[in-house]
């Protein structure tokens, strides 16, 4: 049964591609968690906000137009220009950096030394706040995001692989967007790793992640590093927002991808960048493969719960995740 076999391979390939997107979101969590011990519940909303801002800027939308019109009785909605995608991405990055600064300045600077649960609660508040601000700024309607990424099945791959199978096999079906997303994710991770290993700021980032007091004593400003880390997480959120937004439109459900990142983090460990990547891939492939093999027996829709069950199993046997730092209690 070669066709079934090839179909399984196709399922795995598609799982890998989906996994890359999970990894992207998980990466944002890991960056912030490592450097500051904050589990940032708002990471998903940040992706949504970044995508909304990108669309808004590209379409020349006037920020806070509804609010402005309601107060002054005007009817302004658009500037009437279109901004090229690349320039809009740059501007959005800038917005995310300002956001990072504001988060540090107005929230976490006042919470230094607080319990992790309090920091976590603050990020929940931040998530709702940011969601509201996003709606107020750009409107809550569903938007399409098109930054010029290729979409749809890659015919080239289909044609090149068609010879493999028999008469009922027509080649692998893989979405071009997924391929682009995978490429972008790989480049992003490579750059992040190089940055953290070989630059002054990267070294400082790792130092802060390791020991705050020691970091201060060698002249590192914690505030500066935290802003840097939130900016990086904001940028990663933007990339994730572009990929997911291009796939399924920019709408509220985009922020729920954060929930998908949770099992990825439990699997890979909250403190490991490679863990976030491998965790994402395992969940992506596992989800698809499980649906393919077991789904038909149990009536399908296993994708909704498989990741969580897998994460639960990992938690039982390896609470620190596959790549997380080992938890050692000294007594």
């Amino acid at each position, binding site marked *: 049964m070669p066709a079934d076999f090839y179909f399984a391979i196709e399922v795995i390939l598609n799982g890998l591609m989906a996994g890359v997107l999970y990894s992207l979101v998980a990466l944002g969590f890991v960056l912030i968690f490592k450097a500051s011990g904050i589990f940032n519940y708002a990471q998903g909303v940040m992706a949504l906000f970044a995508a909304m801002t990108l669309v808004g800027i590209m379409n020349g939308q006037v920020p806070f137009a509804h609010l402005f019109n309601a107060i002054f009785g005007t009817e302004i909605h658009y500037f009437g220009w279109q901004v090229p995608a690349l320039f809009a991405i740059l501007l959005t990055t800038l917005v995310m950096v300002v956001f990072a600064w504001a988060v540090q300045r107005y929230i976490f600077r006042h919470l230094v030394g607080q319990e992790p649960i309090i920091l976590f609660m603050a990020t929940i508040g931040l998530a709702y706040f940011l969601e509201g601000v996003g709606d107020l700024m750009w409107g809550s309607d569903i938007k399409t995001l098109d930054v010029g990424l290729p979409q749809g099945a890659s015919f080239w791959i289909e044609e090149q692989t068609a010879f493999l199978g028999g008469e009922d096999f027509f080649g692998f079906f893989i979405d071009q967007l997924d391929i682009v997303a995978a490429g972008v994710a790989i480049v992003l991770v490579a750059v992040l790793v190089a940055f953290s290993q070989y630059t002054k700021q990267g070294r400082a980032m790792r130092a802060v992640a390791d020991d705050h*007091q020691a970091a201060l*004593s060698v002249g*590192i400003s914690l505030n500066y590093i935290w802003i840097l880390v939130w900016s990086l997480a904001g940028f990663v959120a933007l990339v994730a927002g572009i990929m997911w937004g291009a796939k399924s439109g920019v709408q509220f459900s985009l922020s729920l991808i954060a929930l998908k990142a949770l099992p990825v983090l439990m699997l890979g460990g909250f403190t490991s960048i490679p863990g976030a990547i491998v965790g994402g891939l395992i969940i992506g492939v596992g989800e698809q493969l499980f649906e393919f093999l077991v789904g038909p027996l149990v009536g399908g829709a296993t994708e909704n719960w498989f990741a969580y069950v897998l994460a639960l199993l990992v938690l039982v046997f390896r609470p620190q995740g596959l790549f997380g730092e080992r938890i050692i209690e000294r007594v």
Partner: protein
Amino acid sequence: MLDEMQSHVTEDGRTIGGVLMEMRNITLRFGGVVAIKDITFDIREGEIRAIIGPNGAGKSSMLNVISGFYHPQEGEVWFRGHKRPSMKPYQVAHQGIARTFQNIALFEGMSVLDNVMTGRLTHMKAGIFAQALWKGRAEEEEVANREQVEKIIDFLEIQHIRKTPVGRLPYGLKKRVELARALAAEPKLLLLDEPMAGMNVEEKEDMSRFILDVNDEFGTTIALIEHDMGVVMDLSDRVVVMDYGRKIGDGTPDEVRSNQDVIDAYLGVSHD
């Protein structure tokens, strides 16, 4: 007593210069508890200055005031002839004051080499974009810093563990790595918080030798806290003695040793 401004040469040939740091009438309170009460002393260039006292005397608090971790309610800190405004610890580090911690604060997940390299951060000036692009100046800087770091690693005899993650090292070596990181900053003033705490006799001797060598070779001014009296008396040029947040003695080891208040604080005194 030493002359106020004049520099002089010690018996073993080291030059002690003018005043580098001056603490003037420092008072530090935590709520109602007075940790330091109206303490004044100075640290001269090139000397080894010890702060000693029984447990809870306020020694560590004093070190934390110098390094910017604590901010005194009253008093002035003068450094290199200027009154220092209230500063954060990282700003103090940029002024050229490096320190070690009583309970060792190293980056456990990083290698010895990386740990010592972080000590060079105050000397790295290339901006974030130059760093990110890894071009020209950033690269030159990295090479120069690496050379300096290797020199210090050689000096403190930790070449054999350069690539080892610090978390795996035994206690005595960790203390030495922490000293290396502080030295890498080429500090004008080096603060050591109980550098010999928890060490065995052999490790203590090693550490004493390193402290003397650092002072001798690099001319680094050192202020250290210790409560092992014997070690302090051998190492230091001048000693401040604290008890219950007050200064009860200040002078050369010999002067301090014969000070009745100091003897009372260490041996206890009968109140009758």
